């Protein structure tokens, strides 16, 4: 249990599903709750915020006990100091942007509220939209107003429910970058709910994969992809995410210099800082030095880190040196003699390489 962190262990019935979750998030750490819809991710956030009362459990944040059913302690939602970003942002339609933010500041002296609310909006590049009503704001602007409002009370924990899902693809890249900065700057525990593994890998330090009300596996994105504990996690932790810097190459292709070494070719994307995702089943492995005459444009020299069988499929964790995962058949693994510590060449087609702005 981390001091100053968010610690929870709750159990409650949600309709057909039993929610049974124990989590520990350190200050400054971002834990993503990832999983399909109906897994109970949002219910975890609601339990932490006090919007849902678990039958049994204990939630502490720093020195404060927010819930302890054994001792009959339940702090009401308004006293838990959670910065909660709702999925559709839940801005108050009858209030302007700055009044939405100032709503969270009612404990501050009256005269201090407006300047602080406007300054917060300014820090999200929304200074000129401070007097606008939510209905007249774009999706991205609404998300930033909601974020500013959630941060206004200097929360003890930050809860983000699908922060990017209500945005269109173009807005999402910029919003994701900005959210990453907010999460890095927040010196408090951050819980992020998402159904998108790539988003979780990009924004969070650790991922807890949820299914049917419980956490089925926790770890870093690369650990989950490389060593999934179940077929469910293997399916869910589909895309592997690498980071790098993209530039335009010849014939319109995009060249990505990976952080830590290696270069990839992709067919579309824009120059700048990027995240590259590849599905493990798109990656083929060969022994080093064996020349490959295939259509794959991308070849990376890698070290084998782990070999994990999940049914007939085998996940091979690789260091490229960034973590990369390939999915092979057990037969291929045997024929290639893959074992931790060995070396291999990972190859995949440029067309299987997705480039996302970061």
């Amino acid at each position: 249990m981390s001091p100053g962190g968010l610690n929870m262990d709750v159990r409650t019935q949600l309709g057909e599903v039993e929610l049974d979750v124990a989590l520990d998030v350190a200050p400054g750490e971002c834990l993503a709750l990832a999983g399909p819809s109906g897994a109970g991710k949002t219910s975890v956030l609601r339990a932490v915020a006090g919007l849902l009362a678990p039958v049994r459990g204990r939630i502490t944040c720093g020195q404060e006990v927010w819930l302890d059913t054994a001792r009959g302690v339940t702090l009401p939602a308004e006293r838990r100091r959670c910065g909660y970003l709702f999925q559709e942002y839940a801005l108050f339609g009858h209030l302007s942007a700055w009044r939405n933010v100032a709503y969270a500041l009612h404990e501050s002296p009256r005269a201090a509220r407006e300047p602080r609310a406007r300054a917060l909006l300014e820090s999200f590049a929304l200074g000129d939209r401070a007097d606008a009503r939510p209905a007249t704001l774009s999706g991205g602007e609404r998300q930033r107003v909601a974020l500013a409002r959630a941060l206004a009370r200097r929360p003890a924990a930050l809860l983000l429910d699908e922060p990017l899902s209500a945005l269109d693809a173009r807005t999402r890249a910029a919003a994701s970058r900005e959210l990453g900065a907010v999460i890095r700057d927040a010196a408090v525990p951050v819980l992020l709910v998402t159904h998108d593994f790539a988003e979780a890998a990009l924004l969070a330090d650790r991922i807890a994969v949820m299914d049917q009300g419980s956490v089925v596996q926790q770890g870093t994105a690369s650990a989950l992809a490389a060593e999934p504990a179940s077929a469910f996690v293997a399916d869910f932790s589909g895309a592997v995410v690498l980071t790098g810097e993209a530039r335009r190459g010849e014939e319109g292709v995009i060249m990505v210099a990976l952080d830590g070494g290696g270069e990839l070719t992709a067919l579309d994307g824009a120059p700048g800082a990027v995240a590259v995702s590849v599905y493990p089943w798109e990656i083929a492995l060969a022994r080093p030095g064996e020349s490959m005459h295939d259509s794959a444009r991308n070849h990376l020299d890698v070290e084998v880190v782990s070999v994990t069988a999940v049914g007939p499929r085998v996940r091979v964790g690789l260091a490229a040196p960034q973590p990369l995962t390939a999915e092979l058949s057990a037969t291929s693994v045997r024929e290639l003699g893959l074992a931790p510590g060995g070396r291999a060449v990972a190859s995949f087609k440029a067309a299987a390489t997705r480039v996302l702005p970061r």
Partner: protein
Amino acid sequence: MRTAAGGWFAVLLTVALAAALTFLTLPIVAIFAQQPPGELISALGEEGALDALWLSLRTTAAALVLILLVGTPAAYGIALRRFRGRALLITLVELPLVLPPAVAGIALLAAVGPATLLGRAAQDAGLQLTLATAGVVVALTFVAAPFYLRQAIASFEAIDPTLLDASRTLGAAPARTFWRVAIPTALPGLVAGTALALGRALGEFGATLMFAGSFQGVTQTVPLAIYDRFATDFTAALALSAVLVAVSAAILLSVKLVRGPDAVAR
């Protein structure tokens, strides 16, 4: 998709519209057309007419204050909670809506009339209900409150619950959430409900007559005064009717304005 209504059907629509419009507006226009405006205004100068107007305004205002103060939190409570018998409770609250006014009057007499326990208790406490102005307020509240409650419950139910959740996570206790988020968000519906209750209270006739009687300056509201005069002084009855038409039109228009300029243009 909207297609242009063609031929005989277009004619049918136009004729039906013209018939409906004529039937609904002709009686109202007639109130103003029967006598020259000067006659109407001088008829209002008659002492009893002004008394009735003043009494109607006072009692309606008092009833509305009661309805808003008690009805708003009550409606919010019903809208937020889910419990067994909730549908039955809402039906009971709405019942006076469909009650014939005469039945409402009898019901009030049976409940708080001078011969009843409650009526005697009120009298002992110095509150005269029957044949008194306070009785008019009771009658108006009884028949008008369901109009407001019904609308207010629906408006509170229509609020996105995450707005209320968001308010709580931003540090607002339930009471502050009610005042600062629920009421402003439901406001257009609450105003519409108020207008319906106002219109019903202003026009109340049967229950008032049976429960409070018709005494000039004490319980004789405008509708009772119109009834009182129409056989003897038709011009005075017309003048009072004209005032009620004007007030009702003003209520209708102001509701549409609150709901947005679009509602007026439409």
